[in-house]
């Protein structure tokens, strides 16, 4: 009998610590599959941080680093500058990237650090109980904005992928969604193109992933997937916002 579906070799046989309906696990798996497919397991170092994915270093079999909230792009910079032939990625949330660590993220992008950042955008702070994030939609009710996000009080949501693309020409910047099979397959392509951008030394790479948080949104898992389509993608359109001058898919560097 031929095995047609299995755990990526880059991943451990452990369960994910997430709530039912959360799509973090899909994002982790896509990264694991991409590392397998690129054959870079022995050269990969992942960085994770505070938030729901704080313990996700357990999921992988390659070297992992855990660091403070928002700081992974700076830590990745230090790692990559010391070990330029390794594959260094950071796995972060929207609080990390869009709030406390926006300085680290934008400056790593500005310097065209040869690192890859994956950002989970679920429009809330999941781990701390569903407070508002900079990515919370206008009107969205959270535990810290019980009246809903009011732009006169809290400003408008920030589109991180477009912001990076505007300051970091030639980097690879994409936004994907993890809410249906078609989108997940596209997300996989983006993850691979981001890592290839790094592999070929073409520049900074960033993939924002719209991800469901049924617990933080007070929705069923099915309604959460629908809400990504009906509300989130309107604010956060999918696609590639910047690509390297040399395509990361080409056979030559």
């Amino acid at each position, binding site marked *: 009998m031929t095995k047609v579906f299995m755990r990526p070799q880059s991943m451990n046989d452990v369960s994910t610590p997430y709530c039912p309906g959360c799509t973090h696990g899909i994002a982790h798996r896509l990264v694991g599959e991409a590392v397998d497919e690129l054959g870079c*397991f*022995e*050269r*990969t*170092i992942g*960085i994770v941080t505070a938030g729901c994915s*704080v*313990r996700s*270093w*357990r999921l*992988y*079999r*390659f*070297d*992992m*680093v*855990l*660091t*403070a909230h928002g*700081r992974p792009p*700076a*830590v*990745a*910079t*230090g*790692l*990559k*500058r*010391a*070990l330029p032939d*390794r594959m260094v990625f950071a796995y972060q949330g929207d609080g990390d990237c869009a709030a406390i660590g926006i*300085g*680290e993220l934008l*400056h790593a992008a500005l310097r065209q650090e040869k690192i890859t950042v994956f950002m989970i955008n679920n429009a809330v702070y999941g781990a701390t109980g569903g407070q508002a994030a900079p990515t919370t939609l206008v009107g969205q009710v959270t535990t810290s904005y019980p009246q809903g996000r009011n732009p006169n009080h809290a400003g408008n949501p920030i589109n991180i992928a477009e912001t990076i693309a505007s300051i970091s020409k030639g980097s690879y910047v994409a936004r994907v969604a993890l809410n249906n099979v078609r989108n997940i397959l596209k997300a996989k392509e983006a993850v691979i193109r981001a890592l290839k951008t790094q592999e070929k030394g073409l520049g900074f790479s960033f993939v924002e992933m719209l991800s469901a948080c049924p617990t933080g949104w007070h929705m069923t898992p099915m309604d959460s997937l629908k809400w990504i389509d009906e509300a989130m993608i309107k604010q956060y359109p999918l696609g590639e916002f910047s690509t390297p001058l040399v395509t990361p898919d080409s056979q030559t560097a």
Partner: protein
Amino acid sequence: MTDENMLLSGNEALAEAAIRAGCRFFYGYPITPQGELLEHMARRLPELGGTFLQSESETSAINMVYGTAAAGKRVMTASSSIGISLMQEGISCLAAASLPCLIVNVMRAGPGLGRVRPSQADYRQATKGGGHGDYRVIVFAPASAQEMADLTFEAFAIADKYRNPTMILCDAMIGQMMESVNLPDFVNPSGLPPKLWATTGAKNRERNLVLAAPLTDDQLIALNMELAKRYADIEVHEQKWEEQYLDDAELAVVAFGSSARIAMDAIQKAREEGIKVGLIRPITVWPFPNRAFANSQNHIKGYLVVEMNNGQMVEDVLLATHERVPVYHFGKGGGWVPSPEAIYGQILERSKGG
């Protein structure tokens, strides 16, 4: 040691000694009075194939240090007081993850933004941990350009030995004063012992982890116990201090860094006048050189702590002496620098038992 003496500022001596210790990575944010140090690294490291990177903040600099330390390379940053405060989150994480590195604090006067004046007001922050959680940083307090070089060289070795962050704590006077320096010989970074724990890619080995927090409650308690044991070892083995004229001293001045340099002038003058005064100069301020006081002879009737702050090290002297004899403080915060004459006046007064 080389045969050649060079005229260098303390900051330059420190930077050059770091390079000679095999440090090829420097991350930092401009701030006075450590400017010469950062600029020296910006010139020198690219020549040697190393990495100098000016970060967007001190927070980012210390996290770049975290990344390069996780990769197993010798790495440093430098800043001054308020910038060091901004780094404390990262220093706590470095200590939690047992990552060796060197942090330099060329102190200015505080609190707040303070002013660019020599000061020793960050003693307490440096020696008691500095950030959140129960951790320690090994802290050296050089008193000359030569010591800036020697202690920097040693700090890298001790950081690696204990897998712990180390700090050089100095001030604008020691940083900017130019003196003759004999630099240590070059260490080839590729000749340093490999760090088998570093996250370099899991090739032909089990994967490595560098974690700023363990997985479970029990593991965090175990980590704290491991750190406590490490700090106890460091307290036993790494206390360093200098003594002058203690054999018959009835009063001992206790001072570190630039205040010790100034105090020596006053002590020599007093000795010429026949006053029995000596000096204990902590070279490591953590671990504090308790043994210098435990060994202390019965003829010492009092200690005069001279420091450029409102009285921070005086607490450690009180603990070290168990208050057997009076401990006096002479100092002021805010950028005040004692004159040799003022210290001499204090020596006269305190040696009368006043």
